[in-house]
Structure formats: C-alpha cells, structure tokens
C-alpha cells in the first residue's frame, strides 16, 4: 500500500516557504543559533525567522500565532498544487502533531480550567476555522520529537483503511521559555553549533517550524509514501538504546535486501542519539560499500521538535525531485567510532548518482522511534 504525496508547505528559521529551506540546505546555511533562557526574551535574531516567537506581534496569543504559521504553510501547499479545497480531495482527515510549544500561553500562570484542556486541540480547531475545511475525522498526536512520524503513521493507516480519501498532516512547534528551560535542564543544548555525527558534537540547537503535508490515496504525483513504522523500545526516558534496537526493529519491516539511496537521519548532535542511529544503520545495511549515504537537516534549521520529522520529510521529497542532496555542513570530522557513510562538509563527491528512495528517521523521548520511506510513484 502506497499513498501519494500531493504537496507540502513550510515555514522555518530559513524563512517562509520550501524554497528558502531547501536553498539553505544546499548552500550550507546555518539558520540556527544558541539560545539561553537566562537572556529571555532572546535578542533579535540574525535572520528574521530564527525564533518565530520574536516575530510574533505583541500581545498575540501563542496559539493564534501557531495557527497563523500553519496557515502560511497551508497557503504555500495550496499554491503549489492548486487550491485543493475546491479540487478533488474527497473526504479529508486532519492530524496535528506537536509537543510543548502550545502550552506557553497558560502554563506559567494558569487560570482555573486552563489545565483541563489539552493544548493541541484548540489549535486544530483554530486551523479548521481559519482554513474553512471540514475534515471527516481529526485528531492531535504528541509523541515527543517523533510526533510528525506518528501523525504520518496514523495518516497512512487512515488511508490504508479507506476511511478518508486524503489526509492533511500539520506539524508545528514553538520555542518559548518552557521549552528552552527544559532542554537546558537536560544539558542537551550546544553552546556553539549543532554538529551531528561529529567527533566534537556537544548537543542540539533548537528551532521552530510549521509544516503542512497532504497525502492521498489517489496516485497524483511523482512521489509516494511507501512505508512508515513506529516502535517504542522503552529503553530509557531521554536516551535511545545505544545499539539502536528500536530503529533496527523498524528497518526489518522495510523491503528486505534493498537499500535506500539516501537516509535523512534524526541526528540531534547529542552523543546518545547519533550513536544509536549509527548502530542501527550500520546493522541494517551491513555491507560497508553498499551503505547508503546519510545526511540531516538540524544543523541548518535547528531541532524543530514535533515538526522535525515533517521538515525532514520535505527535504527527502526535494532531494528526490531535484535528484541532489545536501551535506551536514557544520560537521567537518566524523566521530571515528561511527560506521555509516555521512555526507559531511566537502563530501559532494559522495552524493548518490540517483535518488529514488529516501528513508527518514526520527527518535523521541520515551523510547519512541519512527522511520518512513519515500519513493517514486509506481508506473
């Protein structure tokens, strides 16, 4: 069962639109930067979208702001494919994926009743009202940093069961004091640059993004979602199994004996994440000479948390459309303990000759692991 990737749109620290994001990846631009909650609110960024919070009009509720960002992504999607609201989408499903960005409005000083309502559903409702769409079914998913993969997993299932014709997956996260304080408390943030798989990696940079992806049962475009799997390995709360057991388990469900032409790794730049992913990739694609090249996006736009899988999904689609890929531009020297083939700085000669299949990984707190495979539409 494959589902068509009809279109997508996004806003990130690279700016509004897929093109700016993609151009940034190709040209090695790092739009992220260190954040320190001691200096909150943070100083104006070097680029206008590094922290979307700073572009928020004064006094606008954060929930409204997130809906605005999602609307921008949705508008880009519609523009790219022709307005699907008036087209042949059929019965629509809607899934919103996010983590903690939606709580900043109330969590510091809650009013009575604020804590009863989950923070994601009002955003889902706000979006449907603004976009004037009436989904047949809708839902919110919050599976830590694998939230996007989880939403796509659910969408794939809805389409497989033929309960809807199309699913719009929305993903967004927002950086506020809660999230930044939280990651600081875990000592997970780099004070310099995000350098995934580097020998001197020291943590992640945070970023923000809002994404809209439209999937359909009807094969309409050149790209399809071939497979998507989730696995909770339950190893630890904040770190994956060092042997990458969760990802290995997922890779077993993918087509045996075939290697993707490219892997977009989760690659947070933390010691444990990168080690676990490397182990899984090396084990699944055991022949060193045949191991697919591995790249990632977080060095450019930061870790966009609940939206990160969706941003990587877009990068995978753009790689296939343009038949090119991008380096991990902040990483100059690979950790010698790692075994996979990483596309670090100045590795263009290692780019794959053709890209007909891309795997995108995602790992989240709580032991949740996800991977999806994008391929060409069958003839």
């Amino acid at each position: 069962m494959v589902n068509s990737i009809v279109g997508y749109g996004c806003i990130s620290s690279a700016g509004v639109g897929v093109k700016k994001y993609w151009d940034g990846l190709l040209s090695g631009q790092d739009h992220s930067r260190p954040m320190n909650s001691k200096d909150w609110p943070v100083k104006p960024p070097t680029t206008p979208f590094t922290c979307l919070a700073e572009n928020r009009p004064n006094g606008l509720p954060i929930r409204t702001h997130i809906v605005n960002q999602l609307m921008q992504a949705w508008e880009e999607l519609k523009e790219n494919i022709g307005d699907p609201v008036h087209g042949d989408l059929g019965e629509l499903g809607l899934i919103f994926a996010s983590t903690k960005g939606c709580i900043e409005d109330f969590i510091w000083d809650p009013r009575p009743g604020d804590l009863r309502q989950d923070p994601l559903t009002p955003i889902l409702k706000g979006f449907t009202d603004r976009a004037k769409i009436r989904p047949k079914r809708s839902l919110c998913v919050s599976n830590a940093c694998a939230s996007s993969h989880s939403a796509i997993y659910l969408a794939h299932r809805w389409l497989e069961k033929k309960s809807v014709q199309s699913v719009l997956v929305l993903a967004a996260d927002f950086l506020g004091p809660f999230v930044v304080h939280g990651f600081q408390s875990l000592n997970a943030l780099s004070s310099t640059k995000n350098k995934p798989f580097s020998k001197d990696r020291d943590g992640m940079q945070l970023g923000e993004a809002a994404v809209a992806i439209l999937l359909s049962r009807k094969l309409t475009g050149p790209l399809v979602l071939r497979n998507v799997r989730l696995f909770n390995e339950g190893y630890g709360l904040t770190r994956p199994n060092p042997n990458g057991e969760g990802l290995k388990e997922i890779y077993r469900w993918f087509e045996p004996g075939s290697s993707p032409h490219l892997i977009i790794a989760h690659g947070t730049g933390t010691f444990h994440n990168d080690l676990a992913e490397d182990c899984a990739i090396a084990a699944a694609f055991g022949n060193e000479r045949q191991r697919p090249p591995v790249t990632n996006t977080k060095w450019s736009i930061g870790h966009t948390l609940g939206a990160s899988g969706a941003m990587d999904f877009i990068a995978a689609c753009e790689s296939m459309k343009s038949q090119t890929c991008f380096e991990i531009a902040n990483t100059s020297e690979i950790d010698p303990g790692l075994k996979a083939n990483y596309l670090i700085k100045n590795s263009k000669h290692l780019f794959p000759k053709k890209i007909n299949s891309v795997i995108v990984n995602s790992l989240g707190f709580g032991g949740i692991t996800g991977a999806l495979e994008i391929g060409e539409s069958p003839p």
Partner: protein
Amino acid sequence: MKQICGLKYFRHPYSFPRSSPPPWAEKVDRWHQLDAYSFGMIDAYTRFQESLERPDLILLASPSASNDADRQFVLSKAKSPVKMVHTLPNVRSSSLVNFMGWGGPVLCLQKDPQTLLTALVEGLDFLDPSCRKLMIWGVVNETFFHRMPEPYAPQLFEAYIFSLTYLALEGKGDEEFPYIIHRVGDDFSLTCPNDGLLVEWLSESHPKGDFTINPQVSLSSQRDFGEAP
C-alpha cells in the same frame, strides 16, 4: 461493514505521591522518580495483569495532555530534569513498556473533551486480522477531569485501561468480554459529548441500555457486574 470487538475495561484509582515503595518497586529503575502518571500505569498494570493480553499496539489517550506534569516542572522553577522528561505526554508509557517487556507502536492522542472516546474509536479502526489486540491507556488527575476540584484534597488520580480485541466482522459476541462494541459503517464523528459520560457508563454495575458513541458505534454490556470493575 459490521465489526464486532470485545472490550475489557479496568479502572484503577490511586493517590500520589506514595510514602512507601509499591510492591513492584524493585522491578523499576528509580521508581521514586516516576511522575504520577507513569506510576499509576505500572500500578494498574500489576493489578490487572492477569486479565490483560499482550497488545499489538498501545494508544495513549491523554485527557488534559501533560498539563499537570508541565505545571510541576514550572513549579520546580523550570530546573528539574526529572520533571522535564515527564512533560512529554508519551513518556508516561516508557516505564510501562519496559516493565511489560514489550515493544511496538505507541501513539499518544489528544482531543479533549473526547480524548478517551476518540481513542476508542481510533482503536476500533486499527483492529483487524493484522492487529487483533490493542490497549488504550488513559490516566487523569481527577481534579482536572470530570469532578470539580476539592480544595485541600489529596491528589487523586485514576488510570483507565481499555483492552480491545478483534472478534469478527459479523456474528455474535464472545462471552469472555464484559462489553461488546458494535460498529456499522465508517462514520468517525463523535456525537457523545465527553469522556466523563463514557467512564460513568462503564462504571455502572448495572448499565442500562447501550452506550452510543455515534449512530454507527455503540457499546453494550454483557454482564451484571454486581460492583464496579
């Protein structure tokens, strides 16, 4: 399409924090660092373990998401890493999954005030010959859920477990299951107003009539429970 599923429902009230270690403490690494939600899930699992089958999928239905844990982190002056990790609502399943020695897909869903109901309908949609059993877990702080907050009351929580089993597309129910869910067609709209009513109906010792989630999905009781499960 007509689908029939068996439902077992378990309800586990508890208070948190505990002053003494639970019976299962030795089996969980740093049990004292669990938050109220993770604690309650393991506590409920150990209580009902004999009646629960290993699932192909776990759905975490999180009414109020992790607002409670988020607030606890804020009250720690946003500095406690232990409290931080529990601010992600899916994390509450991690210790349970480890305790169960289980691995598989876990989805953490939200749609208040119908999070449990929505998860039940989603669960029903997942069930088929390739996914025959699944668990839906919901843990709530009672003061956030269907009861009014009582000032100065101790923190009371409840864990809800819905164990769903695929029975057939047609035919009669299975007597093993106290509740049977009938589904006709694929309408996923929810017309039942909120989770509280579902919990109330399931908690009756003599449920009268069926519980209708929407015109196409209804629950019926097969037993007289005598007392609430």
